[in-house]
């Protein structure tokens, strides 16, 4: 009984007036608040470390491939848009289009993760590690050549891999949960104009992950 | 089945006993060759740094003069002590040597390690002794072996399982008394020795063959010599370090 109430896309009824938001959506908003604090801790530490660093920071273009990542960012934003489309189409009762757009979103997210993994492999090959620069690697030469500041490469690696890594982890979780929704709810046609909570809630999460990435892209890759 | 096990155990025990009673290093060939030699230091030996033990009365009391850190110990005959001499190459690769059951004892006495330089076989036990009754911590900063860091608040002996892989040299230090250092040569074979105050050493029980012998000193680095021995014979190998 309580179950049924929690699942309905309306405030549990009868009940004292709370927020006019159904539980799952409210729950997601609250969860996102905690996520903000989590990424806040990581990003805040990054800012503190970067401004307290001995000597200047590595210039973005040298280690990281901005072009690929820019494309990746574009991809993620698109997937956010397709998520909105999916939501809109189920809201005005078109499950077919919803399925299509949801699939697009899943693909977008999957590609993002794939490209990030590819980027990581490439970076590690060039000698960029969470602990800094590997001895005798391509980047190590750049450090000796003075193109890269040796003093801060350690911090650079630590912060870069931690922040982007955890964002990647969040994207992966998003993709998996969307896939789950697609297989268990979208395909069997369980989403209706009166109950598409799953789409809306995962959508919220997806937009949040997208937003975080835009911040990360700016502070890690651009400045 | 259980019977067999018992027999095996007893047998093993006997073997162990036999090995333990053998005078020369365990596992050496009975008709083995011997390499003996003398390590000299030429030039004026530098003064060893004095140690300020003022804040460690128990240790200070064990010295009549200002204690020094015995980095360079030279005997009357100019022999250099605390040099670790071992067979670097030349031993048959597949040879296996039984591990002594007696643990190597390293004593912390007067806030210094005794011995300061010593050899230990892979898997051979280590008995760490605190004779000072003040807190020592023993940090073994192995690179190949897993480092350990333990403490001894009072007079006590700590038995530790041996090291797992050979490592020359493996430094020991105490963080309560920053000057305390020791060096262990961890080897898979028993063919090593540390020079005494007269600078002499003897490696017994070598099988016939040609060997590269290395002498290591914490301040003057390493020197090597090549020696070829036939079964049963004794060959000299002398080393000379120059004081910088």
């Amino acid at each position, binding site marked *: 009984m309580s179950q049924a109430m929690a699942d309905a896309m309306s405030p549990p009824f009868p009940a004292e007036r709370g927020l006019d938001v159904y539980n799952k959506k409210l729950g997601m908003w609250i969860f996102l608040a905690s996520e903000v604090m989590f990424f806040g801790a990581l990003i805040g530490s990054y800012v503190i470390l970067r401004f307290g660093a001995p000597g200047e920071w590595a210039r973005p273009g040298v280690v990281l491939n901005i072009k690929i990542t820019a494309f990746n960012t574009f991809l993620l934003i698109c997937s956010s848009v397709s998520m909105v489309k999916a939501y809109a189409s189920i809201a005005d009762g078109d499950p077919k289009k919803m399925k299509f757009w949801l699939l697009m979103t899943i693909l977008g997210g999957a590609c993002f993760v794939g490209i990030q993994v590819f980027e990581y492999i490439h970076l590690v090959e060039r000698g960029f590690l969470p602990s800094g620069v590997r001895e005798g690697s391509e980047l190590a030469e750049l450090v000796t050549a003075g193109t890269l500041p040796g003093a801060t490469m350690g911090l650079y690696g630590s912060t870069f891999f931690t922040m982007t890594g955890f964002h990647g982890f969040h994207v992966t979780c998003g993709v998996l949960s969307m896939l789950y929704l697609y297989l268990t709810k979208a395909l069997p046609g369980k989403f209706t104009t009166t109950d598409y909570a799953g789409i809306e809630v995962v959508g919220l999460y997806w937009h949040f992950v997208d937003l975080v990435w835009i911040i990360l892209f700016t502070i890690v890759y651009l400045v | 089945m259980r019977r067999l096990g018992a027999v095996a155990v007893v047998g093993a025990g006997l073997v162990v006993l036999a090995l333990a009673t053998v005078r020369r290093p365990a596992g050496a060939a009975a008709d083995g060759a011997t390499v003996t030699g003398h390590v000299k230091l030429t030039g004026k030996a530098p003064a060893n740094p*004095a140690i300020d033990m003022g*804040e460690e009365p128990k240790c200070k009391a064990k010295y009549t003069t200002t204690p020094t850190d015995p*980095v360079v110990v030279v005997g009357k005959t100019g022999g250099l002590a605390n040099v670790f001499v071992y067979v670097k190459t030349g031993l048959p690769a597949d040879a296996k040597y039984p591990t002594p059951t007696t643990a190597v004892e390293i004593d912390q006495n007067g806030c210094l390690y005794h011995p300061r330089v010593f050899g230990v076989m892979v898997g051979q036990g280590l008995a760490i002794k605190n004779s000072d009754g003040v807190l020592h911590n023993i940090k073994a900063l192995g690179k190949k072996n897993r480092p350990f860091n333990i403490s001894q608040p009072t007079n006590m002996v700590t038995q530790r399982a041996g090291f797992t892989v050979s490592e020359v040299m493996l430094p020991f230090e105490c963080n309560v008394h920053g000057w305390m250092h020791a060096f262990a040569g961890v080897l898979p074979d028993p063919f090593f020795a540390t020079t005494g105050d007269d600078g002499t050493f003897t490696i017994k029980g070598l099988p016939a063959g040609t060997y590269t012998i290395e002498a290591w000193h914490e301040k003057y680095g390493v020197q090597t010599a090549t020696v070829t021995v036939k079964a049963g014979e004794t060959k000299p190998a002398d080393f000379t370090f120059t004081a910088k």
Partner: protein
Amino acid sequence: MNWWLPPQASTFAPSIDLGFLVILIITGITFVLVEVGLIVFVIRYRQRPGQKAHYTHGSTPAEVIWTAIPAVTMVILGIVSNGLWVKIKGRNSVPANAYTIGVHAKQFEWWITYPGPDGKLGRTSTSLIQKTTNPTGLDPDDPASKDDIVVRNQLHVPAGRPVVVYLSSEDVIHSFYVPQFRVRQDVVPGLEIKAWFEATVPGQYELGCSMLCGMGHYKMRAQVFVHTQADFDAWVAQRASQAKGEGTS
């Protein structure tokens, strides 16, 4: 045993102890008020047949009172103690005539460096640290370091003259603590932290590490000797000559 704060041996001690006493009085009054009140209520209003509790949801005036009084007291307390705080730890609190001493903390020793005759501490860097011969990493190329005296676990200070200690740590966070001086300052690796005090009473005290720094934390203890200025100079001279004789302390 000692039921009060340790004996006072620095210029900070009296004012800090006064602060302690003031807070003790304030809190003491509140403490008695509350605890006695509780006991009285417990006895006076214990359940009795036919007694009915007085039905009330509270009284705004009462609550305003016991909100305002603590608030005002706390703000005043804050302002007053801040004056003292700035005097002790403030950025520019170190007196100009302060005698400089270097304190280098490592697991589990205090290495104290005295500037020697030239009154200047030599440059140090962790890369130069040699466990036995150069525990504090003094830079031999720096002329100021030539006459520096490095002593293990012994802090000697002159009485009646401000002393500023430059705290540096080699490995973990330690904390420089002399109870009789009422001085405490964490020693953080990577930071150069100054702390100053002025000893008043010649005698022997103890310097302890008050931040868990590993298995030998409890053993990280140094003697503190407060000398008269004359004795102190004599000690420095004696150590200096000794140092020349041995090459190192």
